[in-house]
């Protein structure tokens, strides 16, 4: 069983009391406990089981404007005492930083509403095994599938965040995650693809056979790929890739990147950064949402933010420290975005495919080719050549490149948004990018 609020609260107040007693002017502490159980399958039989049971503690102590932090997994009182002593000793010799402080008291979350993020259902390992058997049975029903690996993870977590200004709250969350990776082979090639599902509640997880079939289908269609020539071509990003554009955007508008001047979106507030049909929203209070939260990692209340309105940048993601640097109040985004999404476009998926006589549909990218300082983007890619709305043949060993500043202004979104993950996007088309191939 995951530790209850009382246990975590008692550890947290022990830490705060101790820090205060040693002379800290302020302190904040997070105590968490998490239990995970995973079962792995390979080729329709059990491959591994894994159980983890982890406590985690992190403390920040302040002496005026001096601050330092410690973290540990050892929650024995004696160890905590030694660590807080060490932390406070370090605080004393760390230089002052005028922006160091706990969040403003009036911004702290006051009322915690239930977002239904915890499902106490216990899905025993035997049931996980049954689920994975069904999943792999479906995934391997086609002869071209030569290997399947799948897993099911059940996680239950609880935490308390407390600070010396009297904030003390936390809540339980759960997640159920299942995934399948398939390998297919024909006389020309061997290819791999995947499918996964992750939900707060067990009952929302996809059917085992649907997930297995999807993984297999996505893998088989990649067999016998071609390399295409180098050219400018319109690129369509599958939903699982288009949401990555939002993650890049979110990093570029974090108060930290803005304050440091290391973002290609610095000094763009209230300016057009996307084409004017685009709206981007970050919504923390979606019921059962994978990214939902009642408050951020500093305890600050978080409300829905419209980040982009009709293509115009309206908000940064602000935490206390970096907010003070750029004269903005925290908007409860210490720790990043919550449930981030593009609003739907007004063209159907089918029409998007047909929009150009020839386009490249990307299903996977590899490499770390996003430069947040310059906005330059260049990654390896796999996908399909689409002609007149039809998938013609798989394509791989190519790269796609552009600059986010231009790419954001050439986006067309389909109207197929679904709330599957913490970051969600409809299918996306970007015109004017370069493909490097043969």
């Amino acid at each position, binding site marked *: 069983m995951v530790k209850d609020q009382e246990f975590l609260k008692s550890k947290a107040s022990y830490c705060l009391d101790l820090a205060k007693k040693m002379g800290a002017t302020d302190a904040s502490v997070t105590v968490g406990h998490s239990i995970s159980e995973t079962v792995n399958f390979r080729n329709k039989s059990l491959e591994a089981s894994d159980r983890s049971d982890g406590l985690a503690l992190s403390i920040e102590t302040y002496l005026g404007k001096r601050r330092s932090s410690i973290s540990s997994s050892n929650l024995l009182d004696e160890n905590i005492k030694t660590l807080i002593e060490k932390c406070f000793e370090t605080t004393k010799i760390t230089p002052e930083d005028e922006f160091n402080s706990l969040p403003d008291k009036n911004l702290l979350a006051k009322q915690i509403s239930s977002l239904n993020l915890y499902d106490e259902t216990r899905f025993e390992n035997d049931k996980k095994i049954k689920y994975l058997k069904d999943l792999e049975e479906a995934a391997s029903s086609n002869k071209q599938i030569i290997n399947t690996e799948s897993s099911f993870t059940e996680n239950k977590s609880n935490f308390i965040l407390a600070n010396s200004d009297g904030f003390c709250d936390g809540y339980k969350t759960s997640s159920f995650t299942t995934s399948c990776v398939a390998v297919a082979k024909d006389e020309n090639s*061997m290819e791999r693809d995947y499918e996964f599902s992750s939900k707060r509640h067990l009952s929302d997880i996809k059917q085992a056979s649907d997930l297995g079939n999807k993984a297999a289908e996505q893998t088989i269609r990649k067999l016998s790929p071609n390399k295409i020539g180098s050219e400018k071509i319109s690129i369509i990003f599958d939903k699982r890739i288009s949401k990555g554009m939002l993650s890049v955007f979110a990093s570029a508008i974090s108060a930290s990147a803005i304050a440091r001047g290391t973002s290609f979106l610095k000094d763009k507030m209230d300016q057009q950064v996307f084409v004017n049909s685009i709206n981007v929203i970050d919504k923390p209070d979606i019921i059962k949402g994978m990214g939902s939260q009642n408050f951020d990692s500093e305890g600050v209340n978080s409300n829905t933010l419209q980040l982009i309105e009709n293509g115009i940048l309206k908000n940064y993601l602000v935490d206390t420290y970096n907010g003070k640097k750029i004269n903005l109040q925290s908007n409860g985004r210490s720790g990043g975005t919550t449930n981030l999404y593009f609003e739907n476009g007004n063209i159907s998926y089918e029409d998007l495919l047909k929009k150009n006589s020839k386009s490249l549909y990307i299903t996977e990218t590899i490499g770390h080719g996003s430069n947040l300082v310059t906005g330059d983007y260049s990654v390896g890619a796999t996908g399909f050549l689409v002609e007149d709305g039809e998938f013609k043949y798989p394509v791989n060993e190519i790269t796609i490149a552009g600059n986010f500043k231009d790419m954001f202004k050439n986006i067309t979104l389909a109207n197929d948004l679904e709330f599957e993950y913490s970051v969600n996007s409809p299918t996306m088309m970007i015109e004017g990018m370069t493909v490097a191939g043969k």
Partner: protein
Amino acid sequence: MSNFFNKSDLTRQDADKLVSETLNNCDDGELYLEESKSESILLDDNKIKSSNYSSDLGFGFRAISNEVVAYSYSNEISKDSLKNSSENLKSTLKSIKGTYNHEIPKSNKKFYKDINPIEQKTLNSKLEVLNKVNEFLRKKDGSVKQVTASFAGEQKSIEIIRSGGESLTDVRPLIRFNVSVMLEKNGRKETGVYGIGGRQSYDDYLKNDNWKNVCEEAFRIASVNLESKPAPAGEMKVVLGPGWPAILIHEAIGHGLEGDFNRKKTSAFHNLMGEKVASEGVTIVDDGTIDNRRGSLTIDDEGTPTERTVLIENGILKNFMQDRHNARLMNTRSTGSGRRENYRHIVLPRMRNTMMLSGNQTQDEMIKSVDKGIFAVSFGGGQVDITSGKFVFNCTEAYEINNGKIGSPIKGATLIGDGPSILKEVSMVGNDMMLDPGIGTCGKAGQGVPVGVAQPSILIDKMTVGGTKL
């Protein structure tokens, strides 16, 4: 060395007994105990941004029978907690019986000292170096707009207890010093990053004001990039510089030669043992035994002493990298490549220091032989799709080559290639093998482990460069 048995009600005798009893009917397994102390100190935006110390303690208990691995970890080292884990393992493996393999090779060699680098340098003197870095770079040139510098240090103590009570221990120091600088000139911004590190004390790396050299190198890379032009797009010849660019080898073929992917036949290399997979003259080893290197280990995380494993000899595929589990199932021996990020993770076969050895040609000859291509000197990260064999890496410093001469610097571009065929495209191997500066971390299945790479300059006849200029 940590004593894991003075922290709770669990005695060594209890642990020995429980380990033997749990693993009695299994093929392999062990109790892995770990205590780590780590620090990170970061200067950013003219200030000491964070100073963090962290201590971590826990165990991971593993039992293997046939192809099934049961694993359980906890950060509470106690009788109850270990018993719970034991029950958990037994229930997973209840219907599968094995025969425990007690054999584990021994060695007295050690490749680094039992030091705690964190304690060997005072916090004040670390802060002083970071402030000096900031001042030095900002004074150096008006174009310097942002400086980030950091220290990261760690001491990890491990003990492995096997069935029968055999115990193996190791103490592993690791440090890293990093500088990143952003320049702005005529409205353009570019960053340069450089770092050094390994398994010695901070001062071993920072003596003779070596931090200045790290600053100069980061500044040089950023300056070069300020002048960079859009990179070309398409297939062309690529000359790679020596040292860190060997992450090409790590991505292109290293991962594909790890035992697990080959046992499962999901690697593009699984049926190529003994075959020619590289040009003649190409020899690649994975070596865990180089003194004080970031990727070196005295013993791996299963207790096997590390070694120098020849992967490709003169173009022919000779060995895969193995941990005990995959080695047993493939009827071979562990190469001391069983590694894990920490006690929270299962062991996987991983790389240590992956190196292409020197040949006889010079970098000059390579450049001169290229009509149109690029010269890549430094990289950010890379990634590979093991199954299709396609891999990428991102240039952070590269130049055009036109008619045998190095031309303008080009913007960061991704290079993409095919692992099983790329080494056949290597037409020249340089005589200038160099180790990387000690900064690599390899990710696999969500686990990061420190690794090293090395190579001489090489000429690749055909690779796709992912620029924007057609």
